């Protein structure tokens, strides 16, 4: 008597660990896949930098003599622009058509034959890609901003971790949007139409062409809560330049979390609907 039986960890636990391990392995391979294309990264950095100068001076002109516009001062605008130029590549706002291409060519069949849900597997790859982009594409424009301009550095201790969380969520949200745009290929085969619409909307409504603070307050709020676009760039950058008080910013990141969940659920739903009518053409 008196012996104590060790409790065995419930199987779900080990399942979760194994799922995380699988996710991590796919993410690492995503990192490696994108790290293969170094010249592409260099070309991307050059483009981002050129447009960074362009955007910064336009915003500066908008700020005018007062040096303030829509709640941003000059330093905040500099941070907004230069970190924003880097984030473009981290969230990979444009140019991702891998899923659509695979649907069109039928290569998608190979993805369906894996024991990992396609949304999970593409997300993991994208997280790895974003990790590589954070090193290769985010750092250079930030350094340029830091050396050439007076940039705004966060004052609050909690800002940096909140910014990192906000960027991670932006990556997930952007992935979700891109997955949905690409998934129209299941129905349309040719996704150029949806892709153009996405490029236009994301550029204007994410805060890339101009900070959404330039818009009337009610419109900015409508976009922020009613669409996922401001969650892509505007919210992470606002968090970094501390445009709102800390509790409001926490709320904004909460909005992002909500969008991330909604979009991933939508991706899975669309994927399931698509699989029921999927035609993989050719031998």
């Amino acid at each position, binding site marked *: 008597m008196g012996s104590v039986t060790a409790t065995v960890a419930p199987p779900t636990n080990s399942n979760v660990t194994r799922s995380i391990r699988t996710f991590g*392995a*796919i993410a690492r391979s995503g990192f490696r896949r994108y790290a293969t294309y170094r010249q592409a990264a260099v070309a991307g950095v050059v483009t981002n930098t050129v447009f960074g100068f362009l955007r910064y001076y336009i915003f500066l002109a908008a700020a005018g003599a007062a040096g303030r516009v829509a709640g941003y001062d000059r330093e905040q605008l500099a941070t907004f622009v230069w970190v924003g130029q880097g984030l473009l590549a981290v969230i990979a706002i444009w140019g991702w058509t891998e899923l659509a291409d695979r649907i069109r060519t039928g290569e998608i069949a*190979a993805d369906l*034959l*894996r*024991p*990992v849900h396609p949304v999970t597997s593409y997300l993991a790859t994208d997280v790895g890609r974003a990790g590589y982009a954070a090193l290769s594409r985010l750092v250079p424009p930030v350094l340029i901003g830091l050396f050439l301009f007076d940039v705004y550095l966060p004052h609050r201790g909690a800002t940096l971790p909140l910014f990192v969380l906000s960027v991670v969520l932006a990556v997930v949200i952007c992935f979700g949007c891109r997955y949905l745009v690409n998934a129209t290929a299941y129905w349309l085969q040719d996704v150029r139409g949806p892709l153009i619409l996405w490029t236009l909307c994301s550029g204007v409504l994410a805060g890339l062409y101009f900070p959404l603070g330039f818009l009337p307050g009610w419109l900015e709020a409508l976009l922020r809560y009613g669409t996922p676009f401001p969650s892509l760039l505007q919210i992470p950058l606002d968090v970094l330049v501390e445009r709102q008080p800390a509790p409001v910013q926490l709320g904004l990141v909460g909005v992002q979390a909500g969008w991330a969940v909604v979009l991933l659920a939508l991706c899975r739903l669309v994927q399931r609907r698509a699989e029921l009518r999927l*035609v993989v053409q*050719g031998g």
Partner: protein
Amino acid sequence: MSVIEMSGLRKEFTVRVKAGRLRREKRTVTAVDGIDLRVERGEMLGYIGPNGAGKSTTLKMLTGVLMPSPGEARVCGLRPVAERTRLAMRIGVVFGQRSQLWWDLPLRDSFELLRHVYRVPAGEHGARLARCRGLLDLDEFLDTPVRQLSLGQRMRGELTAALLHGPEVLFLDEPTIGLDVVSKQAVRGFLAELGRAGDTTLVLTTHDLADIERLCHRLVVIDHGRVVHDGSIAALHSRYGSRRMVVAELDAALPRPPELPGAPLQRVEADGHRLVFALESATVAEVVAGLAGLATLRDIAIVEPDIEEVVARLYRMTAEAGGATVTGAP
């Protein structure tokens, strides 16, 4: 229990056909038209048919990629589409015309990633990889990115990738398509070795009938989405009347064609110096003995029946009998 069961399996596609300047008509095309088939554990099944017969469509339904229209399929006791993720752990698939490897990654990294995706213990994975490396000579290109591999190298990589998780069933859709003779032999040799072990069920579609002759004891021929033959290769030959031939070279032509019981004369060639007999009930020895009494024999050759010839005849027969299974729909 059978590893693979299909009952009344069908697949219909809706296609839109131009029927005027703007008007388009919907048509239903039946790719697979009610297939009933059972495959037992360890069997090596050749699944052949002309282009567009429904081979790949069947395979896609069995692997869970395509939803059957009506009809039922079970693989390893699972419903392919509904339980696709669980099934994926237990089957391996090689599509000769598509790649399952990661284009940008070296083969070695692809294999390592697959270990995590399929959650295979490192020891098991290592042992299987070592075996494939030995049998398929992977070592020289293990660190080359997949996009730089030749077709033959990539196919050897694909085979390895499909086997690293120890699948119970291996589906191969034209695994030797486009390969050179040496690579084909390597792939066939490897699959034969796999079949000998007896614990993997193999379903192979191909247009290269040498694959089938070398590997499969059972042959299923489908056309227009229906099974038109199911049995051994020998059964196919006897059913469609293909026979072994005896080719006799004579020193001098005979004045009139000889008649040998059980071996009708098929052709007279080379001005009567070469005679071709089909073996029906007679043996080779009887034909030789019969001829030796009539003329001086210079040479004798025995020609095995040509499976390509039989299958071509079968395809032509079903094409004449079946016609297209296309039905109009409003």
